[in-house]
């Protein structure tokens, strides 16, 4: 074992203030997330409370349940004074004489602790406060604690500060003045002006001197690099580290360390979702005649325990509509209805399911669910300009195409997590379509909100937020884990530690390094903002048809621009000449002649004297635009006009096609550390890439293998993808199978699709879930096979009309004793309205359709010559959702959504009654009906029912509709006669 004492000492340390009280004053602004403040209470006279006599009893009553030596939540025990002083994973919890700085007091004072229990009585809080104020005395016999504990992570804290303030110019990407501040060696070596630090002598250290003079970070560059000056607290910390001798960088953990791969204890692994799914045998049932496949057996066995069975089969057309809406999100046309009704094949329904699975609309429908899960949006979010992501659509198209091709789910995940690590894309001149897909797929982890394109919101806390969002999305969408909780502290309910969280963040570190950041898009904003091909997270799209298309599209505009520029130049030239003449005229004749000769001579033939002259009189010889505009006011007007025109033309140019991708940036990323309370100013242990320990039981461990072909890529994400897609992974298949089930039946077998942990719901049918998961994996991870299996079951084909028994014994239908009555979701509703009115533009793929905002605030899609495209192709902007979709619960995707809510709000009724889009669609639909069946009202009514509801009207419905139609006709006639 190496350096046990040293390492053990590093694990938990506290700082007893007093020694440098001011040094601990919280730079709360910098700390970002947490502004801690408590009310000062009046001091009381008398003997200060002691730990043993006064404080421990309070802790015993309120805190030890979670913070005993054994339980040790958040790494904190309050059982002995020593433990209290040692603090927890987030650092010190008490600071002697500083109640305001003591986190423990802050938390009990606010009621945040004890968690889930009533707050402490004010008297008890006052005891703790006075105890801290008195310097935290122990027992009666003990001397008060006064000695300062060893310094806590001075070097790491220092590195975090320099990282935030200096690395943009003195780090990996740039080493201004030859200075690299990433390591202690770099600080000692220094740059052009010598070493940056002199250990033990802060005042002699150049670093300190430049910061003190407020020359560093340079004020004129701060905005551009999203950096601000050091606060006094930060500056003190930098000095303190140098004064203490500039202790060396801590040892890096070794990847070959056998203890590295942590496995959680077997007890916590007992939880159902952390066990690999095993294939259960389908149970025997009484009602064998209703069993079509094992799905039915599992469901019916459970139903029979309640003396229930399946409901009657659904009506043929109801089933048809269900299948259409489920698989394509669109209702069938009257012609399709007719041909299905005419199909007498006993397997007509099965063949219908097959046909629908082959339909291109299948991918459009199911991609929507996946895009919800990954938080897809066509804008960056977070900043009010909500910059549009012009290249995101490629990822959307990739998902649609992959689903239509029934790409195996494991492959689908691998491509999205690590497509760039599957081939040497840098060495390829032109990508094949498959290769292009691999890069586009990595857009998966680029979909959350990302505000860092604004220099004002590109500070470390925001960058860490971007990474956190992606970890949250990755965790919830693929594993049903609520990892976000473990960012600031160990998960309170699940065996997920902060270490697990930061190990995953290390997996992404080679692509998302907060200390070496790339802009999410070319549209960056703010003072000095400068995004270009080298500092954005976009990959070029090498020459392909799309690039040529853009060039062809741009060509006429470019020609126009060139022409305008030529005109402008033509008009400027004589004026410039005239002005030059005037300027020259002011010079003596001989000089004029010499200058003329010098400027006319070929540059390489000029004599030294000529060169000298040209240099000296450069200003005279050069007539700037500004001078011309200044001199000729009339021309200035004309010039402005032309320049405006050029500007307008330039706006019409399409940007170069690019890929919104996640890729390994190459080289060594900065080390990943556990951040106490999630704050970058509170760095802890360094971690290597890894996965949650609790899942490591029977799986092949996470192992990074650098791809052979690679010069740069590390393989960290590829290792994650491979680990995640192991056939016996406890979560991957279960989570996906559950979501597919949810989208067919409205509720998943686990009703919390994003939380398979202990606070999530338990599966209603655990064996069915496991059987489906195994079947899914063993069948080659085919999603279409899964749909087929579910949709051909008896359970799926039941009626949604509930019988009395089903209602009584299965009121919320968790046992699936009937098919649930389901509501169209926002996208299916809008798309169906467009389809039945004949205004659905069937064009697929490509850049998202733009939005139009009506004067009354309604947001609709821009109409194309063929109507409107499906909702999935409309620009999805976080700040401007389509009004119709927004009313009907389309999520804003901050960050993602695994289960859309169903709400009932009056704006829904108002939309469907009054919105222009719906009213016009109704008029179009009426026109279509007349075109198809003519003027006969009863045929019109039948047609309307078929189009909208996939069934003919009943006699009663037809009669009622006929009556209203007659009255309406009369009223309209009367109205038109009057007006």
């Amino acid at each position: 074992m190496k350096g046990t004492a040293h390492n053990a000492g590093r694990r938990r340390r506290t700082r007893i203030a007093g020694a440098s009280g001011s040094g601990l004053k919280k730079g709360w602004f910098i700390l970002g997330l947490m502004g801690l403040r408590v009310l000062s209470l009046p001091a009381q006279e008398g003997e200060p409370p002691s730990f043993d006599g006064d404080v421990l009893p309070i802790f015993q009553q309120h805190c030890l349940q979670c913070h005993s030596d054994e339980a040790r939540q958040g790494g904190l025990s309050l059982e002995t004074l020593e433990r209290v002083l040692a603090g927890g994973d987030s650092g010190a919890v008490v600071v002697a004489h500083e109640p305001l700085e003591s986190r423990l007091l802050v938390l009990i004072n606010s009621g945040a602790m004890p968690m889930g229990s009533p707050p402490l009585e004010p008297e008890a809080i006052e005891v703790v406060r006075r105890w801290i104020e008195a310097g935290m005395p122990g027992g009666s016999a003990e001397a008060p604690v006064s000695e300062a504990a060893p310094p806590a992570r001075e070097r790491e804290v220092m590195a975090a500060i320099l990282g935030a303030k200096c690395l943009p110019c003195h780090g990996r990407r740039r080493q201004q003045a030859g200075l690299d501040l990433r390591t202690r060696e770099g600080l000692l070596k220094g740059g052009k002006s010598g070493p940056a630090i002199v250990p033990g002598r802060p005042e002699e250290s150049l670093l300190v001197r430049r910061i003190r003079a407020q020359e560093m970070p340079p004020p004129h560059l701060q905005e551009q690099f999203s950096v601000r000056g050091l606060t006094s607290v930060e500056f003190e910390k930098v000095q303190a580290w140098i004064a203490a001798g500039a202790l060396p960088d801590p040892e890096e953990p070794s990847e070959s360390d056998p203890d590295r791969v942590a496995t959680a204890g077997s007890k916590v692994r007992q939880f159902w979702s952390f066990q690999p799914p095993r294939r259960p045998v389908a149970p025997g049932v009484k009602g064998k005649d209703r069993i079509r496949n094992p799905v039915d057996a599992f469901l019916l066995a459970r139903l029979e325990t309640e003396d229930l069975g399946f409901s009657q089969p659904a009506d043929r057309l109801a089933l048809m509509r269900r299948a259409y809406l489920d698989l394509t999100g669109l209702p069938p046309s009257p012609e399709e209805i007719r041909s299905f009704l005419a199909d007498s094949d006993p397997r007509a329904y099965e063949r219908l399911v097959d046909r629908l699975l082959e339909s291109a609309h299948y991918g459009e429908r199911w991609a929507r669910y996946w895009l919800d899960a990954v938080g897809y949006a066509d804008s960056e979010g977070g900043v009010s300009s909500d910059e549009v992501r012009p290249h995101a659509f490629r990822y959307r198209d990739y998902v649609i195409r992959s689903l239509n091709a029934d790409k195996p789910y494991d492959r689908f995940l691998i491509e999205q997590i690590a497509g760039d690590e599957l081939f040497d894309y840098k060495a390829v001149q032109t990508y094949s379509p498959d290769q292009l897909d691999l890069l586009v797929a990595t857009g998966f982890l680029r979909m959350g909100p990302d505000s860092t394109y604004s220099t004002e919101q590109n500070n470390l806390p925001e960058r860490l937020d971007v990474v956190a969002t992606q970890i949250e999305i990755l965790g919830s969408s693929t594993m049903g884990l609520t990892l976000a909780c473990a960012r600031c502290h160990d998960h309170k309910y699940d065996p997920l530690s902060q270490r697990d969280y930061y190990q995953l963040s290390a997996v992404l570190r080679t692509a998302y390094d907060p200390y070496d950041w790339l802009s999410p898009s070319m549209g960056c904003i703010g003072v000095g903002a400068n995004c270009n091909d080298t500092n954005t997270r976009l990959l070029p799209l090498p020459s392909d048809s799309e690039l040529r298309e853009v060039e062809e599209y741009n060509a006429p505009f470019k020609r126009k621009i060139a022409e305008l520029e030529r005109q402008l130049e033509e008009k400027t030239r004589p004026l410039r000449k005239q002005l030059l003449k005037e300027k020259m005229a002011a010079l003596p004749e001989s000089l004029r002649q010499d200058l003329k000769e010098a400027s006319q001579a070929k540059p390489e033939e000029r004599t030294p004297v000529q060169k000298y002259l040209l240099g000296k009189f450069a200003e005279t010889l050069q007539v700037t635009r500004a001078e011309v505009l200044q001199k000729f006011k009339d021309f200035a007007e004309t010039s402005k006009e032309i320049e405006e025109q050029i500007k307008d033309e330039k706006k019409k140019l399409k940007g170069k096609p690019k890929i919104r991708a996640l890729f390994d940036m190459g080289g060594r990323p900065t080390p990943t550390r556990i951040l106490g309370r999630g704050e970058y100013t509170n760095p802890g242990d360094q971690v290597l890439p890894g996965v949650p320990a609790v899942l490591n039981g029977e799986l092949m461990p996470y192992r990074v293998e650098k791809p052979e072909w690679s010069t740069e890529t590390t393989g960290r994400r590829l290792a994650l993808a491979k680990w995640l897609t192991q056939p016996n992974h406890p979560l991957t298949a279960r989570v996906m199978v559950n979501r597919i089930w949810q989208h067919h039946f409205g509720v998943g077998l686990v009703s919390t699709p994003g939380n398979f942990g202990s606070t999530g719901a338990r599966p209603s049918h655990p064996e069915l879930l496991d059987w489906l998961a195994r079947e899914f994996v063993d069948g080659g991870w085919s999603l279409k096979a899964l749909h087929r299996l579910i949709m051909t079951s008896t359970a799926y084909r039941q009626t949604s009309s509930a019988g009395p028994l089903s209602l009584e014994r299965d009121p919320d239908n968790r046992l699936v004793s009937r098919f649930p009555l389901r509501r169209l979701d926002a996208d299916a509703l809008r798309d169906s309205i467009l389809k039945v009115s004949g205004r659905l533009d069937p064009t697929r793929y490509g850049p998202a359709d733009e939005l139009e905002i009506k004067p009354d605030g309604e947001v609709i899609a821009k109409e194309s010559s063929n109507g409107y495209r499906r909702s999935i192709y409309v620009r999805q902007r976080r700040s401007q959702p389509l009004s119709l979709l927004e009313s009907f619960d389309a999520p804003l995707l901050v960050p993602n959504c695994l289960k859309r809510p169903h709400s009932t709000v009056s704006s829904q009724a108002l939309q469907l009654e009054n919105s222009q889009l719906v009213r016009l669609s109704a008029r179009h639909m009426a026109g279509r009906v007349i075109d198809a069946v003519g003027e006969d009202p009863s045929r019109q009514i039948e047609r309307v029912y078929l189009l909208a509801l996939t069934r003919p009207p009943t006699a009663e419905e037809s009669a009622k509709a006929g009556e209203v139609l007659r009255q309406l006709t009369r009223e309209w006639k009367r109205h038109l006669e009057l007006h």
Partner: protein
Amino acid sequence: MATSVIQLFMNGGPSQVDLLDPKPALEKFAGQPPSRDLASEIRAVREAGGLMPSPFKFSKRGESGIEVSEVMPHLAKQVDDITVIRSMFTPHIAHESSLFVMHSGRMFPGRPSLGAWVVYGLGTENQNLPAYVVLDDPKGLPINDIQNWQAGFLPAVYQGTRVRSEGSPLLNLHPREEWPSPVVKLSRSLLRHLDRNHLSRHPDEAELEARIAGYELAARMQLAASDALDVSGESEAIREMYGLNDELTASYGKRCLMARRLVERGVRLVQIYIEGQIWDNHNALVKNLGYACGKTDKPAAALLKDLKLRGLLDRTLVVWGGEFGRLPIAQQPASGEAGRDHGPSGFSVWLAGGGIKEGTVYGATDDIGYKAAVNPVSVHDLHATILHLLGMNHRELIFEREGRSERLTDEFPARIVQDIIA
């Protein structure tokens, strides 16, 4: 105790040292460079100047003697009704992040807003009007757009409903072309018939019933909303008091008056936003701050007075403030007069009614008005206090989501500012 809230949201960040937090020491230190800590919070570093005293005069007003700047003469008359908190602070210097913090407690989008939590907790008292109404400025949406009043993960029914003060108040409240009323009646009756039929086939579906009811509510809302928002019947004296006769104050005045009419009818929470960045005075402080005050001071004071006269102030909490304050140093743009840059570390808000103490000042900034120094109040503290005044405990107002207990104040330490409660 409060049953309604009117939030006068002052987008852009009103300058505390020029309005409600007098700092004579700035005269003494005028022109001096800022301290290291202040310097580390400057946004536009290249335009940063020295400490700048307020160009406006402060004087003690009312019986309480609270000092108010000369640019808020109308508020000055109501100063005995309000509590000024001079020690607010927030964690970010950009509008977007600070707006998210002020409205939802976190620096990023996606969390439910304060208003959404309030109506989630308390429901509504008027079924025919939205419970949470947003009166945005006809001149345009504020920064972060509709995300300021989103419901986040709370059901959409709790999100703020945008009500326009000009034209049709609610989106799609009326169609672009109105149908003849017999036609509307017939269509509605057919729809009702279809709905009833559908419901009779699924008698157990409560949600279906609610959705059908939604259409009936929508019809009632068309009447109720039009009535609530129609200020034409208000007396001339009221119109004058709110500044409806003066072009400068008319727009904001109308929205303040609408807010009064809405809380009168039981609307739970009304937020009034103001055009663009009216308080974002990066330059020409005298002119721009003067404009912002000119536009809002009279109507806001009128609202207080009116609520009080009608006996509504006791149950209506009025909250005035922006997403942050401004720095006490000058921001000197390349050309033109100086203004002030964003200052999140110390700023002022005022509250009135709904159980708030009358005529008090709470907390203080340091000598130069840069940073909250005495009794600092975080945004979470403010949220907890507002919920408390409405009778709710911020630790207990919980929404269960995917197994997590979500709160407005999340796990942030938040205290109820007892000292400002009567």
